[in-house]
């Protein structure tokens, strides 16, 4: 077990070294992150001239967006497009020959960039928040461990759902629409707006779908922390993650049987 874990740790270290070498795109993403937060902050400032919305104050709302965008920018993975390219080009064959499980290889490989992003974007997020709206008084240090756990679960949940979508390229050649549907579902159910803002009928649906647990759960824990809330949301995230891992491994098992690689 330890030997296996060491193998994947080495893969993550190599990917981190790669991410450190090719970091120019990260700087560009820093700029976009700041710009998007600025745009949304400006928008919500205009909206909040009418008063507080659903119990969220203006400062809480801006920090909420800082957190959801942090999860999106820092913790996002390009595994969906990687999977598509590898299946369509046949280069997946190179990975299958490696002494590692393909799914966990990709997970370990994408974690290097995620770790680097988390450090860079994490620092930037704190600076932006303090400069734009000042401290978040509803947050206490007691909420930090559950927050870190929730963000970690978000990263993994997002990764496994994207992997699952990528695996669909074994069956459907053009699966871009699936990706867009997932992306927009996460946008609408938690990233741009807290779930509490949705109409009550949609809230019920959103709380029972995994999409809300990618962005809403960590951001809600961050801006409105309480022990009970953290336990409830983290449990739901863990449940969604378990379902996503199971579905991914099952799909991978079935998909790999359909693989045909022609030499060349």
């Amino acid at each position, binding site marked *: 077990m330890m030997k296996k874990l060491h193998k994947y740790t080495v893969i993550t270290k190599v990917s981190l070294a790669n991410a450190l070498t090719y970091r120019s795109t990260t700087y*560009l993403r820093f*700029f*976009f992150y700041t*710009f*998007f937060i600025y*745009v949304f902050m*400006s*928008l919500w*400032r*205009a*909206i909040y001239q*009418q008063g507080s*919305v*659903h119990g969220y104050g203006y400062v809480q709302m801006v920090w909420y967006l800082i957190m959801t965008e942090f999860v999106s920018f820092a913790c996002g993975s390009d595994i969906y497009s990687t999977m598509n390219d590898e299946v369509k080009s046949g280069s997946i064959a190179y990975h299958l020959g490696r002494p590692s499980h393909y799914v966990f290889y990709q997970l370990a490989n994408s974690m290097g960039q995620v770790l680097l992003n988390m450090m860079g974007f994490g620092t930037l997020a704190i600076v932006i928040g303090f400069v734009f709206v000042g401290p978040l008084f509803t947050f206490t240090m007691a909420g930090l461990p559950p927050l870190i756990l929730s963000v970690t679960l978000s990263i993994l949940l997002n990764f496994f759902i994207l992997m699952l979508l990528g695996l669909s390229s074994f069956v459907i*050649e*053009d699966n*871009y*629409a699936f*990706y*867009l*549907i997932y*992306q*927009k579902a996460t*946008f*609408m159910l938690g990233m*741009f*707006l807290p779930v509490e*803002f*949705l*109409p009550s009928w949609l809230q019920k649906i959103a709380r029972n779908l995994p999409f809300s647990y990618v962005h809403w759960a960590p951001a809600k824990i961050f801006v409105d922390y309480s022990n009970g809330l953290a336990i409830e949301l983290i449990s739901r995230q863990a449940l969604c993650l378990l379902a996503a891992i199971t579905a991914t491994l099952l799909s991978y098992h079935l998909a790999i049987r359909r693989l045909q690689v022609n030499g060349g």
Partner: protein
Amino acid sequence: MKKHSKIFWSYFRLNFASALEYRASFFSQAFGMALSNSSFIFFWWIAFGQIGGKIAGYSFEDVLFIWAVTSSGYGISTLLFANASELTRLIITGELDTFLLQPCNVLLSVLCSRTSLSAYGDLIYGFILMVIFYGSNRLAWLWFFAGIVLFGLLMTAVVLTAHSLSFFLGDASVIGTLATEFLINVSIYPEKIYAPFIRAIMYSVIPVGIAVHTPLRLFAEFSLLPTLIAFMVAGLYCVLAATFFYRGLRRYESGNAIVTRL
């Protein structure tokens, strides 16, 4: 001029035929883009539902109007002139050589030789919004079409100018991406949410305000002078962008890449 129009339409026909060749990809990308845009309207629907009235002086219908203009204007620009955003790559890889050897206008040939599949989704999405929310309001449609023309021209000119910097600075793709993102983001939100210096940029360096927010104001209350100014500025920006491109082209050093265009 006649020759240029012929080349323009030939490129359009070929690009469209090529898009239809891969129908599944074409429809999924066009549908995906329309769906993607819808998620923002969902956001606005919730936001206006929460507070009612107006946000920064814009009603829900006003926001849909600027969204429709931006979406269709962006669509028309990337449908007809998608290669503007690829100019940096053409310069750096030396692929621009191919266009220089052709017996037609270089800029026209460069801009029109590629289309974007998702652009059809953007273009259609604006029309869908207009049909649903403005119905047969002729005045709204008039300013919508004016906005599309203005936005399409300005978008192409701004992207072309930003990428033409690659002739002078090397890889300027980052500047191109930043300019495009700025252009889109200031177009799809009420302008008053932005600080004065951002609004100053919207009406000077990257004058996208005249393509989206001015048509909305003119739709509410017509005035001849701003209309003329908007079209003159868009035209002038295009002329300046073309001039800048040709200035840069003089500095272009041919590569040794062998490129085939099929």
